[in-house]
């Protein structure tokens, strides 16, 4: 007769092996590597918690210290390849196979290791996609997670950076997997229970907070006049006419400029209360002036942001906060919110081709996807109407009767025609294609597909791809805002002029914008210090962003 509880028995065996290193659930920091050798089995699927923000860094370092003769061939299923130790485990043979989502800081090294065959790649996912697979075919046998504090029963307080933890624990613990948490300290009573203790099997006191990258902090001091011009175009040419109230922003300087210009330029246009009221967004410091000026009603966050915790706690009407007063973030929920409950995503990219496909991959850097493809896609399952969604749908498909017409989420790519080092934003062929050939991947790593993109904003103007009726128009609409790049200089001037007459392309002057008005005095804060002052001293920027 079949044993229907083999997984539970296997977990019990692992717990028993680990218990010899533990007092109750608590494992000493000094025993971490042998402890991991005791609870892991070669070939395990392991989720090492870490995304573009928080990292279970102490557990990651310990995993890289285990003996490859004992533990090898692990299959890592994790959001982020961010710390050097995340790749060390592959170099040492401790891990072999990888399914992941984001690899920003390790983009160059992961590319080298993929080319070198040291990593057997499953796939590069979006966050939400990887989370989904945790519940279907990539369920972890062991999860190594991070929290702020724990009590002796294993109840965890994750603090403002909850992020991926509930999702990882849900998938692991309820499918007979083992959950190990690193915490800064063990306390008698946690400030709030983010993860109930019966889902957590072992806890290690790291004696220091887990690492968090201040990824969403953009220094207003670095925003250029051209970026300000693109922000003026977006506010006046997209946010205002579509009436965008629910939205998500990427992390680039163009969108930071938009955030900083709401209380100045947006106010002058009379848009307060009419746009940008509800957000799926991390606690961007650059949104502080808009919040303080009464623009924002509420924000749900994927994670927190270094230095923003006190400000958030003092603004509970705006943010989601727990009984302890601090932020509650949740990446899976916020990704879902960005996908289904927002009418606009706007973000920057490195390359856009003539079909509107965009990618942040270059041939020697593989940064992964993170959440952008979810934010930057049109959810086919959406059913609730909203004004911008219906308007965009009508522009794309004027002939279908309204009751049967799908709306469209606005997916906007914003950027300058030339990036750092005079590298053009617009290309004939994405580097992602060369990469796919080199690695023999069935799919090129495209961040946002052309058929999801509705608008492209550059300093030359806005291209509304919804209004293009064929591939030729689409190509010329893209060329028509591609500035002095080679793509832009090879435009069909006659067709571009006709597209402009139809409003497919809109120049700054078509919107009543003088590029010479694009001035840094339009920024509600011109420095990180201004942001700290605007927050009433509640925002405490990390040292690397200070000039005081």
């Amino acid at each position, binding site marked *: 007769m079949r044993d229907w509880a083999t997984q539970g028995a296997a977990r019990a065996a692992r717990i028993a092996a680990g218990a010899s290193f533990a007092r109750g659930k608590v494992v000493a920091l000094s025993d971490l590597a042998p402890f991991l050798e005791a609870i892991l089995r070669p070939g395990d699927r392991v989720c090492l918690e870490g995304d573009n923000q928080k990292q279970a860094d102490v557990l990651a370092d310990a995993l890289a210290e285990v003996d490859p003769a004992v533990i090898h061939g692990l299959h890592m299923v994790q959001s982020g390849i961010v710390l050097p130790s995340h790749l060390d485990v592959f170099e040492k043979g401790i891990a072999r196979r990888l399914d992941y989502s984001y690899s920003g800081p390790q983009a160059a090294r992961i590319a080298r290791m993929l080319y070198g065959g040291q990593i057997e790649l499953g796939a590069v996912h979006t966050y939400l996609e990887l989370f989904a697979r945790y519940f279907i075919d990539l369920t972890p046998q062991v999860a190594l997670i991070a929290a702020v504090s724990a009590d002796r029963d294993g109840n965890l307080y994750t603090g403002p950076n909850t992020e991926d933890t509930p999702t990882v624990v849900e998938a692991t613990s309820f499918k007979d997997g083992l959950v190990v948490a690193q915490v800064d300290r063990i306390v008698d009573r946690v400030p709030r229970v983010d993860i109930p203790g019966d889902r957590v099997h072992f806890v290690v006191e790291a004696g220091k907070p887990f690492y968090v990258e201040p990824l969403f902090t953009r220094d207003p*001091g670095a925003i250029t006049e051209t970026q300000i011009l693109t922000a003026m175009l977006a506010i006046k040419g997209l946010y205002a006419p579509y009436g965008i109230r629910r939205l998500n922003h990427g992390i680039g300087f163009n969108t930071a400029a938009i955030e900083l210009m709401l209380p100045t330029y947006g*106010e002058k246009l009379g848009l307060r209360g009419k746009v940008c009221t509800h957000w799926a967004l991390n606690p961007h410091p650059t949104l502080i002036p808009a919040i*303080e*000026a009464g623009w924002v009603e509420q924000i749900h966050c994927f994670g927190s942001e270094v230095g923003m915790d006190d400000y958030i706690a003092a603004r509970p009407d705006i943010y989601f906060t727990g009984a302890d007063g601090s932020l509650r973030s949740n990446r899976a929920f916020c990704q879902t919110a960005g996908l289904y409950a927002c009418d606009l995503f706007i973000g920057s990219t490195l390359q856009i081709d003539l079909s509107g496909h965009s990618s942040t991959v270059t041939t020697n850097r593989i940064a992964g996807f993170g959440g952008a493809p979810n934010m930057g896609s049109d959810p086919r399952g959406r059913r609730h109407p909203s004004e911008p969604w219906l308007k965009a749908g009508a522009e794309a498909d004027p002939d279908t009767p309204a009751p049967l017409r799908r709306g469209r989420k606005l997916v906007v790519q914003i950027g300058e025609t030339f990036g750092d080092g005079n590298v053009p934003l617009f290309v004939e062929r994405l580097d992602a294609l060369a990469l796919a050939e080199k690695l023999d991947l069935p799919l090129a790593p495209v961040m946002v597909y052309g058929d999801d993109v509705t608008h492209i904003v550059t300093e030359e103007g806005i291209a509304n791809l919804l209004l293009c009726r064929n591939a030729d128009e689409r190509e010329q609409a893209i060329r028509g805002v591609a500035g002095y790049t080679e793509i832009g200089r090879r435009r069909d001037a006659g067709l571009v002029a006709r597209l402009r007459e139809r409003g497919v392309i809109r120049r700054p002057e078509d919107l009543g914008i003088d590029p010479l008005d694009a001035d840094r005095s339009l920024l509600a804060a*011109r420095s990180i210090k201004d942001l700290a*002052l605007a927050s009433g001293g509640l925002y405490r920027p990390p040292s*690397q962003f200070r*000039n*005081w």
Partner: protein
Amino acid sequence: MNPAIDLVFEPEALSWYEASARQRVAALVDPGSFHEAVGAEERATSPHLALFDLPEQFDDGMIVGRATLDGAPILVAAQEGRFMGGAVGEVHGAKLVGLLRAAQSLSLDVLILFDTGGVRLQEANAGETAIAEIMRALVDARRAGSRVVGLIGGRSGCYGGGGLIAACCSALVVTEQGRISVTGPEVIETNRGVEEFDARDRALVWRTMGGKHRYLMGGADVFVDDGPGAFRDAVREVLKAPGRLDLDTLDAEQARLERRLARFGAATDAVAVWSALGIADAAAVPGLSTRAFRAVATCRESADDAR
């Protein structure tokens, strides 16, 4: 009421830190009163940068000329901190030498808008010598009765020889962003190691070299907000004092600096210095607004008649 300006701070339209040298000068003196000497159209560029295949600037990063302030004639020099980090080369330095010599012969006051990383390495010997000439011309002008006021709040700070020139001035006006120092953080780190100075720790950089610390120590005389209006008000204020540089001044400076070493010589960090000054919550100083900072800075060391 416009909520856009209903914030707890109201910056001036022009940020000194961000402005170019030309913008600063134009906004500082009486409108339209600045007349540049050896302007960009004369193309007095560096004769040495071509050797390094580096781009030139028509004014070599130094603007000098005459202007009026509240109708009174005054001489002005401004460094462009974004061109080669405001570094002093042959032409750049010679323009300031010429201005200071003119100040002495014409008995005029001088404003120097510092923004410099120090000597320009590509013309290091010329730059170093120019610093020495500037200091001598400055001292001569002051001895003859001119007042020379340094204004510090630019991106490149006031480093290297710039720091020495600044300390020769009659008075210094500084913003929080303004840094005054001799050796830059990166150079200290390179020479002495990251344990001595972690150049990436920006909070450390500013509390060691920044405007608030210099003001509290008497290394600067007026602390202002980041805008030309604030600088103008401060210049008016310091120009009320008579110009003076004699042995009494230097004896007073000697006593002032010896007292500083005696009081704070054992401190290893600025926060300890500020505590020793009598500031209760010294660690909070960097985060304070200008108004709040001035309120706690009443216990500062001053350099009145001792610079």
